[in-house]
């Protein structure tokens, strides 16, 4: 009997925080997201690669899910270009302001609708660096978590073996499927998009994306006409296997108590720009005398001994 594995990968579209410049900060200290390029969260690419690697070695499927704005569809398409079989966009205005707890609840509702053996997440996202959604999602799914996976995994039957970073060293651990893994940037080198896949998925869209495009193309059309055109187009894309599924909270039958702002116990009290501590700075000439004087001061102040 051949054993294949169904992998679900949770990915996130994030602002590229490494490229934050002065312009990316508003005067009130909040982040001007519009000024930042949106990218595939780096360690989510490692999670995707780990899943694709499992598929390559053992067979199975790779389904990618993201929760976000409709624009996050570009991240899903990127995942399809790299080898994912299916992509799902969870999008709903009522998801807004979700903290990690609410996010993990909503994602758990989505994952539960899919047949899975292994759930994979990046270790953490670069916009928040919390590393919380993975473990919280594992708890909500009632499955064990193996965090900080730093090497390709081994699987035999229903037993998975993984090497994880334990902070001050590493551990090799074993668990029975299903299991959730969080994957670090050291685990692998993510593959790049494949030309053939790009050809196939270039036209991939969500139903909302289709409607939006049709509205722009047919300004004179009535809403009903748009609807019927959209349904037709969605059917076409589905036949080609390039329709990106779009799920909202109603479809997920999510309990709204646990979603969005209401479902988020953590709230923002205040956001501040990082203000550099202004100190009394003394300029030292880069000469022998200047440096010798400074060393003398440091000795006098018992900073060095």
């Amino acid at each position, binding site marked *: 009997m051949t054993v294949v594995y169904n992998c679900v990968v949770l990915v996130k579209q994030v602002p590229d925080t*490494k490229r*934050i410049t002065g312009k990316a*900060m508003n005067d009130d200290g*909040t*982040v001007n997201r519009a000024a930042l390029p949106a990218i595939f969260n780096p360690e989510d690419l490692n999670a995707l690669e780990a899943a694709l690697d499992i598929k390559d070695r053992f067979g199975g499927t790779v389904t990618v899910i993201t929760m976000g704005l409709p624009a996050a569809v570009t991240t899903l398409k990127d995942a399809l270009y790299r080898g994912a079989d299916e992509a799902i966009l969870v999008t709903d205005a009522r998801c807004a302001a979700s903290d*990690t707890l609410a996010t*993990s609840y909503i994602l758990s509702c989505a994952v539960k609708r899919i047949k899975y053996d292994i759930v994979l997440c990046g270790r953490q996202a*670069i*916009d928040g*660096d919390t*590393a*919380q959604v*993975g*473990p919280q999602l594992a*708890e909500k799914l009632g499955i*064990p*978590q193996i*965090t900080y996976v730093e090497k390709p995994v081994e699987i035999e039957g229903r037993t998975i*073996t993984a090497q994880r*970073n*334990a*902070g*001050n*060293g*590493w*551990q*090799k*651990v*074993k*668990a029975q499927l299903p299991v959730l893994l969080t994957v670090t940037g050291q685990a692998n080198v993510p593959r790049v998009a494949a030309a053939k896949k790009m050809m196939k998925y270039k036209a991939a869209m969500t139903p909302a994306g289709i409607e939006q495009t049709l509205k722009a193309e047919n300004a004179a059309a009535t809403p009903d006409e748009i609807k019927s055109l959209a349904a037709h187009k969605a059917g076409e894309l589905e036949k080609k296997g390039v329709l990106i599924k779009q799920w909202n909270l109603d479809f997920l039958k999510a309990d709204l108590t646990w979603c969005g702002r209401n479902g*988020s*116990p*953590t*709230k*923002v*009290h205040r*956001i*501040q*720009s*990082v203000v*550099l*501590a*202004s*100190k009394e*700075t*003394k*300029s*030292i*000439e*880069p000469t*022998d005398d200047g*440096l*010798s004087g*400074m*060393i*003398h001061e*440091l*000795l006098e102040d018992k*900073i*060095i001994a």
Partner: protein
Amino acid sequence: MIDVNRRGEVWVFAEQHGGLLEDTPIELMSKGRHLADILGVGLGAVLLGDNVKALAAKLIHYGADKVYLAEHPLLEHYQANSYAKVFYDLIHKYKPQIVVYGATAVGRDLGPRIASVTKAGLTADCTDLQIGDHKTTDGQTHKNLLFQIRPAFGGNIIATIINYDRWPQMATIREGVMVMATPDTKRKGQVITEKVELSPQELPIEILEEHTRAKKVDLKAARIIVAGGAGLGSKENFRLIWDLANCLGGAPAATRAAIDLGFIDHDHQVGQTGTTVRPSLYIAVGISGAIQHQSGMSQSQKIVAINNDPQAPIFDVAHYKIVGDLNEVVPRMIKAIKEKGFKETSSAESK
């Protein structure tokens, strides 16, 4: 869900491995003590493990009023499911108002799992904790909340997070940012031994192998740190950092950029994704001073910065500003130090 409980204690997760307490919980004890005193409540340490009772006294010396001791052979090695279950039962029973964990590999694995079961908030990787009041948009004031302060967006902003409707208020705290208190060996406290019921089914992970890797350098303990940035240009030239560190008896360190360029091992990294340090003296060489780096070193007692760009942001936090070519300044500085009678140490080795 745990309701708001104003009389609840402040708790610290006393992370231990093999019967030894980690540094981080001890650092957290002093902060926890401070918060508990402001709130007028007790400070509890939560100690899970097998045969770890001996650590309770140490936790009391560092400020705990009570140590909640949960011992069981199945708690010998940490794993998320078993630890979360025992910890959750304790939270449910005693209803603390605040629970803090070190943002260690274990704390960041355990905290979210507990937060998910309790449906409580958890703020990751805090760099400070304070007590304060929050006014909601509808005009309600919530008094004496835990302000959970953390950098966000790659360190470009500082966010203060609160939770007022679902408790406990929980946070993980970055390693090394809280200052360890001096232990008071005469301090008395109470050890509360909890009955633990666990079955092997609650341990779904089997640890096959475990390897600890000794850190190549202990930056947290170093009194003097000499750090190099991308401005050093090459691994060969990074030798200057080792030389200056050696002649001061200090530890060599680096920015993330220098580490990504392969100048030195990751253990030497100072900054947001590395170690937070507060030595007596921090010498920044060829470091422009990105916020991510500054957040890990700006608390140093004295900062000397050497850079050829007079506008480099590192000078904003420096006490001594030296504008010049590091290839000339560093050898001159070494010479000046040697003239003051410093003997070169060989404790730090370049590899």
